[in-house]
């Protein structure tokens, strides 16, 4: 094994997906709180950014996160019909649908973005969602490699 190969193996071993998670305050952030209170264990790869509503999430936030090197982005909000602000989540969903097509055209696997609905009582769904995006992204490898 050459030194370069060795280095690569090591890098592979050490690489852990970096996930930016945007959560709405009312459902998913509270769901994540409940996951903690219920001591549900899930991978520590996601960093949650609290926004009032998923409707606040501009496509730019997600694109910029990927550009800055996030391996995946999780967006978690209230179920359709349950939005604290009545419909912000639907607007986010519409934006995300278009954006996923756009990033795919740009050569980024859309599986790096996950949209999920998790209410304040769905701690397990929230935790499972984090696990899913982490595993999805782990299978894809680091984003920076995808660029090259």
């Amino acid at each position, binding site marked *: 094994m050459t030194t370069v190969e060795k280095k690569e193996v090591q890098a592979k071993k050490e690489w852990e997906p970096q996930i930016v998670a945007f959560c709405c305050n009312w459902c998913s952030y*509270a769901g994540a*709180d409940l996951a*903690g209170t219920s001591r549900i264990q899930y991978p*520590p790869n996601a960093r949650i950014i609290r926004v009032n509503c998923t*409707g*606040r999430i501009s496509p730019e936030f997600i694109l910029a996160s990927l550009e*800055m090197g*996030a391996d995946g982005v999780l967006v978690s909000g209230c179920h359709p019909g349950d939005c604290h*602000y009545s419909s912000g989540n639907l607007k986010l969903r519409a934006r995300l649908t278009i954006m996923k097509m756009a990033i795919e055209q740009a050569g980024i696997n859309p599986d790096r973005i996950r949209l999920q609905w998790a209410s304040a009582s769905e701690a397990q769904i929230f935790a499972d969602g984090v696990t899913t995006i982490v595993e999805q992204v782990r299978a894809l490898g680091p984003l920076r490699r995808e660029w090259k």
Partner: protein
Amino acid sequence: MTQTDDPRIGVFVCHCGHNIAGVVDVEAVAKMAESLPNVVFSCDEMFMCSDAGQQLIRDKIEEHNLNRVVVASCSPRMHEPTFRRVVEEAGVNRYLFDQVNLREHVSWCHTRQPEAATEKAKDLVKMSVARARVLEDLPIKTVKVLATTLVVGGGIAGLRAALDIGDRGFDVLLVEKESELGGHVAKWTHLFPADESGAEVIKPLIKDVKAHKRITTLTNSKVIEFDGYIGNFEVTVENLKTEKKQKFDIGTVIVATGFIPFRPYGYFAYGESPDIVTLAELQELAPSDQLLKPSDGTPVKKIAFIGCVGSREPGVKGHEHCSRHCCAATAKAAADLREKIEEVLILYQDIRTYGKGHEEFYRLARRRHVIFSKFPRDAKPVVTVKNSEVHMSWRDVLADRELTFQPDLLVLATAMIPPEDIAETAKMFSLTRSGDGFFNPEHIKLAPLTTHTAGVMIAGASQAAKNASESVIDASGAAAKAVGLMAKGEVEIESTVSHVLSELCSSCHTCITVCPYGAINMDETVDPPVAFVTEAKCRGCGTCASACPSSAIIMYHSTDNQIMTMVEAYLCSPAQLEGGEPQ
């Protein structure tokens, strides 16, 4: 709305006893924070929310002339109001405070990975400090609170709340969708813990409500529109019979929409014989000297009850909770009926007569020779109907024997579940619901009667399955919350609203179409017309800010910069942040 002083940030990392410090290396987190830009003070402390912790924040603000504070502790949904108050007491605007969630989001959910948890904690603190650097102070705004409460639901909780508020000199609008007040309690014949029927208990309440000068009662009516904000809600109520609509201005709201008894189709042959009824149906039978079989009108000589029907079923959505009232209600009904009926049998999984005076009913039932038999949780009794006779068989856990019984009447003590229209009610008042389907309180321990919609309280069984006396306690509590707001006459509201930079607005109307509250309009007095936000109507979702193609909308306290700086702090190395290349 600008902070001209250079940021001077204080970081306070909380141990929360062993809750955080048991997993996260809090000392390392605090030490790391010292090196972050603009951080002039950093420490770790046992309990930041304690009096000592709060005083520490105030002292350090003064000592180091801090103008921003980051507390890394529990969820901001728990203690953000506490710490905002603390920094404000020390002269720092509440919007210059930021909280990191190291407990619910780190130590409690990554318990077995202390190193990764500490790394995550450091990242979250970095992100929060980066956000704190660009936070801006905002004015503290107050609005008036109209002195009228809307009480939704005229059951025992709604009635008690209406009376409490009316008696303190505030107006009440009581809306009930049925034609009569009194809810379920009015129909019940064996009410516990009092030895009175439900009707006897609730009649004086209804009488007082009807006679009260300050209480307006609308029966056969439903709230169909709900708009506005704390202290200043606009409500439209429709009469379901006449379809007449009326508008009201309201200051506070109490939602007391109660429950419905579960109709257990698919359980214990319910629906296959008229002699299998729910406890609620038994309670609602017209009072008479003798209990008669619904099928043929002959006297009931043998009766059986089964407990926990549709309650306490792990994994069954909406049926996992304990319905709390049934054990005592069953014991009371069984004890009452044993006076007239030869054989009374209660089959149970567990008996929990937990409340004041409830244990006495259990003992009374025992004393009157009601037979109790425990069945295993994983092998429920089998009920079949043969030749219109009800047959039961089950294994008695304590005797370890298979038993059978043929009751004249089988009563199923079924779960309390939310009314069919609860989703509609939740949407109307922007309430969230917990796993049992009932409304979520603002905080399960610390704020069980208020909700995340400011100015809207919940009371009684709309919050969780509970008995009548507990509902009344809730009602008085919720009434006190409403009266507290109205007596003060004004309340502080969040300044986190959106704002249009008119010089950037391209008059495209996108924001107007996305705003769920109609809070954005065009100012036609200027040419070209530009959008503007009516702040009182804005609830701060920020959907307009992300939709605006001209970046002309600022969402205060959640600006693009305040969000993106957190992403940067997480993903970019310090060198990159200074403009260098990724390493």
